[in-house]
């Protein structure tokens, strides 16, 4: 087991290095000369040349790359052009708001998708099942940012119940968290339903039923326990995807997290912050994947046996 852990951790470190390389290629090479971008259209040739030297842009690309990687591994992405101060510090300062939002949405998704998925799986083919499955599909099709906007129009604008944006009180958290949860609520509900139904056809279920176990106990103890396994895998991924959708949702609700910081930095070409924010998001996502991978072996012994063998 320890060898597996070491191998997975090493693989994750490699992926993190690869992510940094992609960031370097996209941000430092694709857009052209950063110096003229920073200085704007009015800069003289001499000014650009001076900035190029001080930024190290006149060095060979491979040297720039090595320097970027070494600094990035120390979490040093340079100074924010727009806000001043260390770029990574700006990102880390905004991170708790994003994590709070993602965790709340996660709790909502897990709670409601399990309840709805179980309700559908207990009576497959009935009206209840079809209503839940159909609803799940509709939820998956809704554009997230538009759900947020509708919630603002109805809940804040027409009913005056909750604030339309901002940060500080738990009331501010409700609408963005619901918005973030909506589309994955559909996806996970469908998943809980389908994987529970798959388990219901397995041999061990028939054995237990033949031995006279009550349907109630059979479902909650045997079927559901196995049916929730794929949900564990997906739950980790969903939390990661939440980080990606944070950019859109934080923009809709003026939520001061990393997502809004990222989009404002992109629009203002504040690349050190962009690099730091993208790296932090990817790093969290990689770590989540790693944890899910290892947890899965812990929850389901069959996976562990298969990997070791």
């Amino acid at each position: 087991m320890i060898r597996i852990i070491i191998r997975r951790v090493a693989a994750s470190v490699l992926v993190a290095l690869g992510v940094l390389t992609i960031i370097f290629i996209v941000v430092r090479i694709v857009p052209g000369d950063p110096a003229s971008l920073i200085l704007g259209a009015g800069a003289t040739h001499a000014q650009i040349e001076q900035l190029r030297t001080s930024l190290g842009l006149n060095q060979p690309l491979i040297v720039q790359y090595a320097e970027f990687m070494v600094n990035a591994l120390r979490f040093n992405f340079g100074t924010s052009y727009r806000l001043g101060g260390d770029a990574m510090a700006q990102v880390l300062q905004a991170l708790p708001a994003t994590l709070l939002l993602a965790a709340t949405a996660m709790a909502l998704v897990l709670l409601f998708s399990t309840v709805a998925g179980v309700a559908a799986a207990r009576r497959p083919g009935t009206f209840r099942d079809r209503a839940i499955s159909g609803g799940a599909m509709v939820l998956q099709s809704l554009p997230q940012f538009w759900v947020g906007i509708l919630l603002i129009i109805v809940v804040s604008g027409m009913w005056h119940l909750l604030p339309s944006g901002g940060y500080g009180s738990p009331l501010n958290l409700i609408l963005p968290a619901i918005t973030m949860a909506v589309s994955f609520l559909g996806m996970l509900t469908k998943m809980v339903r389908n994987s529970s139904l798959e388990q219901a056809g397995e041999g061990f279920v028939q054995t237990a039923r033949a031995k006279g176990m009550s349907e109630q106990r059979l479902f909650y103890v045997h079927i559901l326990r196995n049916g929730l396994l794929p949900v564990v895998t997906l739950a980790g991924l969903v939390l990661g995807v939440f980080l990606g959708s944070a950019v859109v949702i934080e923009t809709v609700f003026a939520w001061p997290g990393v997502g809004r910081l990222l989009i404002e930095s992109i629009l203002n070409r504040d690349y050190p912050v962009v690099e730091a924010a993208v790296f932090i998001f990817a790093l969290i996502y990689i770590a989540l994947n790693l944890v899910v991978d290892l947890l899965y072996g812990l929850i389901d012994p069959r996976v562990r046996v298969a990997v070791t063998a």
Partner: protein
Amino acid sequence: MSEQIEIDPTGILGSGSKSRPTKATIRERRKRRIWPALIPVGVFVFFAIFGPLIVPFNAISTNIVERLRPPGSVMANGSIAWLGTDQVGRDMLGEVIAGARLTLIMAVATIIIAGIIGIVLGLVAGYFGGWIDNVIMRLADLQLAFPGLLLAILIAGVLGPSVRNVVISLAVTRWVTFARLARSSALSVRKLDYVSAARLLGASHIRLLGRYLLPASISPLFVLGTVEVGSVVLSAASLSFLGLGVPPDQVDWGSTIAAGSDYLLSAWWISTMPGIALAGLVLSVSLLGDKLQARFSAARSR
């Protein structure tokens, strides 16, 4: 409970016999029909192609006097703005239809480009195996280390807002799904007798890939392409909503929703109307995708 679980959900067992079909089989067959799911998608495609001819729309012309009119208002020239007018007085109906065209163009272009890149790389990886396979699939894994839209947002942000750049940034991040499917299909076919026979007869790598491996994988890839349209439409709209999508002189649904978000409490229709169209399109595409998937997996298990 057990008797409620369908043993034969696709109706294959029932439809195999020549005897008169039972009511249940007829119902199953009806469920598997594809054309009803094509109708809603067809409506969107029709409006994207012919809509701008029926309801003309000019993104640049503005009419400040008649801005922010609610749906159903009668305009000064006697026409009715069925969906209202936006913040610069443009007719929302025309705007939504014009948005349908641009949204569909971006989605289809993205799918085609991502599909071609993904299919070529995936087939090559599965066919040759070895280090080529390793390099291509590790590259794919690397892209998946960016959560959700993040890589597309990064690329679109760096390239600047334009229709072409939306397509580039989405295609670059979407090829992975196609590559994985093409690779697994190439892996399952490449050792089959008819491929070996062709190889022994002296067929070149290109010929083997194009004439023997590609046809074997084309129908699942086609289904995947359909399913992906929905999520690409959502991604493109998200980019436009963030200001990284279409430039200001063009409209798609995402940019119209963003423009309306400054008027949520005074003119709700600006953001609501294109959102309904967007959700409707994505829902119709995923209904069609579900049908195609069911049909395809039934055909394969036969």
